[in-house]
């Protein structure tokens, strides 16, 4: 049994991170969530650098959940950096944003996001959104790397 996490959550807001983790737990989706507080940490994690230098960068998450409103490096810049990374560029990225502004959506898809989800204020709606996207990206969707594929079902 591998212990590699299968979701990378890039979220600076502690409340949102906790609520997202709670929603996954409630949905009873088998998953392991690693959280990065900003884009730099997320990129370090994906590349096995900095605080994550002991990690094998070949173990990629099945999906990256990316907030747009991030400190230091905006969400769209993080997305661009992921898409330019030799290994991580194929990992599905789901934007989880407060905004439903057209500019944000066009920017996200323009930089090859795989999906765009607006975080609802209502917790029931939020839990349902997390449940369906968790089911889809971890169980229905086949990620590019086989290690991640087996992972979704092995845990």
């Amino acid at each position, binding site marked *: 049994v591998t212990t590699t996490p299968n979701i990378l959550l890039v979220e600076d807001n502690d409340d949102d991170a906790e609520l997202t983790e709670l929603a996954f737990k409630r949905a009873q989706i088998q998953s392991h969530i690693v959280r990065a507080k900003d884009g730099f940490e997320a990129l370090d994690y994906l590349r096995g650098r900095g605080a994550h230098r002991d990690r094998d960068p070949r173990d990629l998450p099945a999906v990256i959940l990316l907030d747009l409103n991030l400190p230091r490096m905006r969400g769209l810049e993080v997305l661009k950096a992921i898409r330019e990374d030799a290994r991580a560029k194929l990992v599905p990225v789901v934007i989880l944003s*407060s*905004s439903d502004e057209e500019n944000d959506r066009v920017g996200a898809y323009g930089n090859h996001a795989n999906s765009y989800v607006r975080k609802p204020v209502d917790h029931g709606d939020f839990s349902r959104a997390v449940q369906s996207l968790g089911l889809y990206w971890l169980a229905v969707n086949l990620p590019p790397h086989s290690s991640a594929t087996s992972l979704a079902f092995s845990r």
Partner: protein
Amino acid sequence: MQTVKPSGSPPAPTPASDRNAEERFRTMADHAPVLLWMSGTDALCNFFNEPWLAFTGRTMEMELGNGWAEGVHAEDFQRCMSTYLSAFVERREFRMEYRLRRADGEYRWVLDNGVPHFGPDGVFAGYIGSCIDITDLKEAREELDRKVLERTAELEAFAYSVSHDLRAPLRAIAGFSEELSRSCIDQIDERGRHYLERISEGAKRMGILMDGLLALSRIARTDLVKGHVNLSGLARDVLKELREREPSRAVDAEITDGLMAKADLGLVRVLLENLLANAWKFTAKKDRARIVVGQQPGRPQAFFVRDDGAGFDMQYSGRLFAPFQRLHAKQDFDGTGIGLATVHRIATRHGGRAWAEGAVGQGATFYFTLEGSS
């Protein structure tokens, strides 16, 4: 030395009436608050009034012919000459803006309006032109444009902030009160549960209000793309959606065919959605309701949506279209108070307006125009 005059009859002296007319013209030209010039059939200038000479600080001799063109700014020279000469060839009136050097050396923007003039026999005699200094006007206009851009940017930043930053703490309030009522329900008594419910309700409502506000600001920020819009068809679509959402309601709809307007399709749809949802909502207490969409008789550019629902007191009609103003208690008719503000803003963005008529218990009529009344 005496000039030898040709033999024959002596030259006719200039009649006194002609001299008077010329003098009157001079007086008028020299005291007009505009810069005047005249040219002959050869397109060369043959007259400048006092204000022109005072403005350029040059003498009549220097300005005559093409001399005046020395004062035109180098960047405007080509355009200025070709506008003048191409109009001249066709004997057409022209209007142009260019920079002209003032006596103190400063270039000022002038608006020059030239018209061909003809003799009493209808023969083309040249051009008469008048110029005014529009530099201050131009600068004021540019300043205004700059301000509009600035305000729009501020509005965008505000909307972005509402959309991103204010929703996060709201999600925390809604989310954790929900988690509290789920995970720790055993430790909370009846009263505590009631309070938790109120917190959730409040957060949810604030989310709806913020979305309404955002939608309102979006109307100001979107570019208007006008086309021919079929209001009758749109109204039918919207009513169909309302019926599908609440199939149990009995609502008779009467929509006049062929209501057309030159407007932005997306925005007009939002306008009709708000007015029809409003009519739908305020007739909810009737067994059988009636909604009419039509055109005001004798004023075809004024459209209306009429219902036979709860109505309102005309005393408050001025408050109807202001954001967050509501005339009914939330428990009677739910709403955010954003809908009619949205309608009003869409109408004014098109150059039109929105107004209402009604009476308590006797229904309401909401009118709107999508262009300035001409």
